[in-house]
């Protein structure tokens, strides 16, 4: 038996619905249809009245989740594509993210954002918005890269008393498989050494983890050993784990699928240089998507996003200096 990243998300939701009566799911087409990506397939049937079709009203969907959270519920909001969360952003950053700080009232909502590029996705079905949400105070931002994390981090997110932006990567939905669901997991906020190595630290997350691991395998054949850090959450950032790795390797590349200006890579580098400047043997570098909308044609897209080949080139750049 094997389980995909998408199935892990579905199983996590089933688990939550079964074990916590405060949990419900609200999103477009999540009910009988089971969601655009089938992440809620059969759940409406199994949990009547708790998996609810929403109108095309992202602002009201998210606003209502805050109200329900105030009343003690733990809503999961599925946004059909992360890109569409821009029309509900205000309720996230100004309503949900400020509630606890303003009033000491918990706001346990989880927003599931199917994120990131897939072939042919184009400018409006491919975006990575984790850096946008992470900039605002009051949110936890998850970016699981593995089947195990998709499962355990979603369960922990919904269990948390704070609002969580759960960026699940569409590219991983069907392709990524694991043997089984995990029994235990690192807590939210802890990064993971996905691969040990002595020559350069590569900090990454979500779908890019797999491009980095592929790059690491290829470079290993040449005798270059990359240490790959999977951030798991981009807010909070596990600076300690990153710095400990840089202490071992002396070099740093950050790889993210998001746009280049600001964002996760810039934040990681700023922390490493502030706290671990003397550990560095070379200038830390980063690789991102290009600073344009995400292109539709696969030939353009494959150059727009970082991938194993361009990551390898970037690593060589770090090693050279």
């Amino acid at each position: 038996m094997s389980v995909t990243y998408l199935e892990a998300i579905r199983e996590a939701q089933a688990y939550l619905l079964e074990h916590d009566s405060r949990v419900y799911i609200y999103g477009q087409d999540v009910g009988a249809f089971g969601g655009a990506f089938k992440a809620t397939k059969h759940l409406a049937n199994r949990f009547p009245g708790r998996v609810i079709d929403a109108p095309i009203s992202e602002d009201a969907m998210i606003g209502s989740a805050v109200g329900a959270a105030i009343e003690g519920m733990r809503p999961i909001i599925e946004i059909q594509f992360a890109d569409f969360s821009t029309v509900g952003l205000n309720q996230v950053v100004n309503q949900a993210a400020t509630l606890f700080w303003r009033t000491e009232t918990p706001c346990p909502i989880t927003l599931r954002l199917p994120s990131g590029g897939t072939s042919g996705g184009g400018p409006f079905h491919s975006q990575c918005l984790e850096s946008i949400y992470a900039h605002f105070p009051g949110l936890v931002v998850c970016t699981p890269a593995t089947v195990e994390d998709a499962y355990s981090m979603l369960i922990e997110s919904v269990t948390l008393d704070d609002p969580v932006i759960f960026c699940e990567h569409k590219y991983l939905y069907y392709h990524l498989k694991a043997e089984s669901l995990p029994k235990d997991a690192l807590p939210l906020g802890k990064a993971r050494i996905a691969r040990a190595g002595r020559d350069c630290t590569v900090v990454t997350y979500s779908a890019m983890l797999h491009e980095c691991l592929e790059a690491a395998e290829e470079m290993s054949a040449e005798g270059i050993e990359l240490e790959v850090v999977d951030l798991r959450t981009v807010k909070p950032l596990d600076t300690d784990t990153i710095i400990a790795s840089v202490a071992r390797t002396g070099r740093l590349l950050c790889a993210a699928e998001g746009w280049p200006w600001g964002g996760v890579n810039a934040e990681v580098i700023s922390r490493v240089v502030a706290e671990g400047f003397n550990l560095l043997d070379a200038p830390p570098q980063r690789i991102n998507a290009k600073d344009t909308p995400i292109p539709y044609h696969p030939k353009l897209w494959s150059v727009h996003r970082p991938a194993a080949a361009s990551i390898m080139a970037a690593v060589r750049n770090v090693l050279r200096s």
Partner: protein
Amino acid sequence: MNPILDKARVIKAYRWMLMARLLDERLAQLYRAGRIFGGVFLGKGQEALSVSMGMVLNRQDVYAPLIRDGAGRLAFGESALDALRTCMGSPMGPMRGRDGNVHRGRPKEGYLPMISHLGASISVVNGALMAKRMKGEKKFVGIASIGDGATSTGAFHEAINQAAIEKLPLVLVVANNQYAYSTPTSSQFACQSLSQKAIGYGVSDHEVDGTSLTDCLKTMQDATDRARQGEGPQLVIANLLRLCGHGEHDDAHYITPELKASSVGADCLKLAENTLQSDYHISKESLEIWKEETVLEINQSIEQVQREGAPDPYHHSWKSLISRELCEHS
């Protein structure tokens, strides 16, 4: 007679209106004396409508008031002390100096703290009502209060439509005070009356003279009763006039003399006093005494707030999350 109009209740409503008005006047004074940080936004002319919202709600209900709802807040259970604490930034108030003036509430008590973004509170009320239904509660309602200008927001539209689809016991009250800041309703919508919006959402509508306390009480009671009984969302449009500037920095020179002279321009507090005297046989003396009592309470509250001091930034918890272990150091 409609029980909402019995003497004790009307007196109660009037006294909250009076408190709201006098509190507003004090806030305006304090503002001019530089004793308030940020803006001050008054509810002058809207007390009859506002108080009626608070009067028809029970403890298990949900209330999302807006900037001009001082009276409704009091009637729903807020103290003058909390209002003053928030405006003056006391660390003891519900917002502890973190948020100010009208942005206050006690969400755990069903009293939602508005954010500034207009229209954004309505769907929050919806969610609270959905939750109560899921939890099996019965006979609850939620009131969301907005202005004429907020009807132009996407948030308003999405939320009233959501409430209609989910058949929620939402009472959405629009205080049509003829202006959004300086903008007249003619630049805000092109329908004849905002109540014409109801049919397009499949919800019931009510229109009321917002200057009349008894009319407001009756209409709000009727609307909430219907919502409680499962008739779905109720849209209440109240016609009145803002008898002050948008905020105390605004002299409202743009309000036309015609509007001021028209029936919407009447002062609901004065009209309520007249009604109390003529229909409920309250004496001028009683009115005077209530006023004095109210002034006293406000003065005592202000003194207390002044004793409470200011928040101490160096012993303040700068944490945006409950999960302290997930907070980043800053």
